[in-house]
């Protein structure tokens, strides 16, 4: 059956975020006829409410810290505060430029872009405002939205989500951040640099709890030094409004007062009322289930991005979207090794990793097979110049390939590309060590760590 316009698309994509637009761009490039349906803005969470605006704030935060600390570098600078309208203008300027570029790409590749809220109405069709878009194949990419805890209502004013936090018209005096994961520590980091009194509450025993424990501990040490407070292993029990803010209660009896509470306890899939169940798509707690080729149990339907239970990262969405497009175009595709996907948390200092943690490696291979090396950035000239502390930790199995790279330090996220090649190409430490890295970069710390693991440390004790 054709759609109302008489066309059967090769692919109809529901949701124009990282996963959806990557699928659309790649499919169009491969000659497929594509419809892309988006109810809000092309680019989705990442471009408008996620990756990009938060990283702009983090850069402004870096500039604020630098201006505060100029004297220690011999530069006479002063920091007089944040100009909130101007910081928002900067942030929106970055987003606007990238948004325009993305719109240009989508239109130049001949994609049929449909503005509106879509609903899956058959295994091969999506309906938008009464118009039916029929496709040989449908890709679900409706993404995710902020979650809360049972009984904790986000009012958008004093109890806010990351969406609200990005729209604040002021720098609050104080804030409680509920959740010490990626989004929580990034906002805590920005706010501290902006002069806010911040406390993070995390139920698990560590900040960034999915990272290697060594990274968590280094981040905690750095945050403590920065005066960012945190309550670890502490469960939230409730929040009340006070005269001019909120009071958060923890199960351990502690109470924390602040101007606002940011709820950063995770994001849940957008899948309710969209016809997915009705069309027989298998789901679990709201996530759409897929095989390693991103195909659901309904052969004409695939799903990508935050909607499926893989890592909630923009580049995972890109990768999954590209994979689906190539599969639908008949190319041979290779499933994604999710351990090999780089992860970066952009707080100050940054945390980055690829591969598996030491704990996981011991579980899989046995503790006696695992060797680790920690290269301290104290021995790295450029890190000393930046006055940053941190480490690069490598996890090796059986004297062979490196199965985990875990890094903490200012700007260290940019090192994850080389780490990603090392992990995914199963390089031996000696093969990395043989290539002498550029001096004096932070990058050479990665080289030094591999020199150490290969048994030939240069600027580190044996």
């Amino acid at each position, binding site marked *: 059956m054709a759609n109302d316009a008489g066309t059967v698309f090769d692919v109809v994509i529901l949701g124009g975020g990282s996963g959806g637009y990557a699928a659309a761009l790649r499919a169009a490039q491969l000659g497929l006829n594509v419809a892309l349906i988006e109810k809000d803005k092309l680019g989705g969470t990442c471009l408008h409410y996620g990756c990009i605006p938060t990283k702009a704030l983090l850069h402004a935060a870096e500039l604020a810290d630098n201006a505060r600390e100029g004297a220690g570098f011999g530069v006479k600078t002063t920091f007089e505060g944040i100009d909130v309208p101007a910081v928002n203008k900067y942030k929106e300027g970055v987003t606007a430029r990238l948004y325009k570029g993305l719109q240009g790409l989508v239109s130049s590749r001949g994609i049929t872009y449909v503005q509106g809220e879509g609903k899956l109405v058959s295994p091969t069709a999506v309906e938008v405002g009464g118009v039916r878009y029929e496709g040989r194949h449908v890709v679900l990419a409706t993404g995710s939205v902020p979650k809360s805890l049972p009984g904790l209502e986000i009012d958008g004013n004093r109890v806010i989500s990351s969406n609200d936090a990005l729209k604040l018209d002021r720098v609050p005096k104080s804030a409680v951040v509920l959740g010490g994961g990626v989004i929580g520590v990034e906002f805590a980091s920005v706010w501290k640099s902006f002069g806010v009194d911040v406390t993070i509450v995390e139920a698990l025993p560590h900040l960034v709890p999915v990272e290697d424990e060594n990274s968590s501990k280094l981040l905690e040490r750095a945050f403590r030094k920065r005066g960012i407070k945190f309550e670890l292993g502490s469960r939230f029990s409730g929040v009340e409004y006070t005269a001019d803010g909120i009071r958060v209660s923890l199960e351990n009896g502690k109470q924390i007062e602040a101007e606002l509470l940011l709820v950063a306890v995770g994001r849940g899939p957008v899948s309710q009322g969209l016809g997915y169940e009705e069309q027989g798509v298998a789901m679990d707690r709201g996530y759409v289930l897929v095989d390693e080729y991103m195909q659901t149990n309904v052969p004409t339907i695939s799903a990508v991005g935050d909607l499926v239970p893989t890592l909630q990262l923009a580049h995972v969405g890109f990768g999954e979207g590209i994979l689906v497009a190539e599969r639908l175009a008949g190319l041979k595709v290779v499933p994604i090794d999710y351990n090999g996907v780089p992860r970066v948390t952009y707080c100050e200092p940054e945390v980055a990793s690829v591969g598996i943690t030491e704990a996981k490696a011991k579980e899989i291979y046995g503790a006696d097979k695992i060797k680790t090396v920690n290269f301290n950035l104290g021995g790295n000239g450029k890190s000393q110049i930046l006055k940053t502390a941190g480490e690069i930790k490598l996890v090796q199995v059986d004297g062979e390939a490196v199965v985990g790279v875990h890094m903490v330090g200012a700007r260290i996220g940019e090192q994850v590309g080389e780490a990603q*090649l090392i992990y995914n*190409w*199963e*390089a*031996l430490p000696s*093969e990395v060590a043989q290539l002498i890295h550029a001096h004096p970069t932070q990058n050479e710390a990665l080289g030094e760590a591999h020199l150490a693991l290969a048994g030939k440390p240069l600027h580190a004790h044996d």
Partner: protein
Amino acid sequence: PAANGRPSGRVLTKPPVRKLARDLGVDLAEVRPTGPGGLVTREDVRLHAEAGAPPAAAV
């Protein structure tokens, strides 16, 4: 020494193994692959190098 050896073609292998082959003076095209899907492994390259490359050309 690198300039004449590269690029070393479409033999299926992982990038670091290409470098190993170059360091050992092994032509990947002559190595018998034992890895999955015809992939040349590190071991294949080492064994080939130890066996001694056949004389390249009768001079």
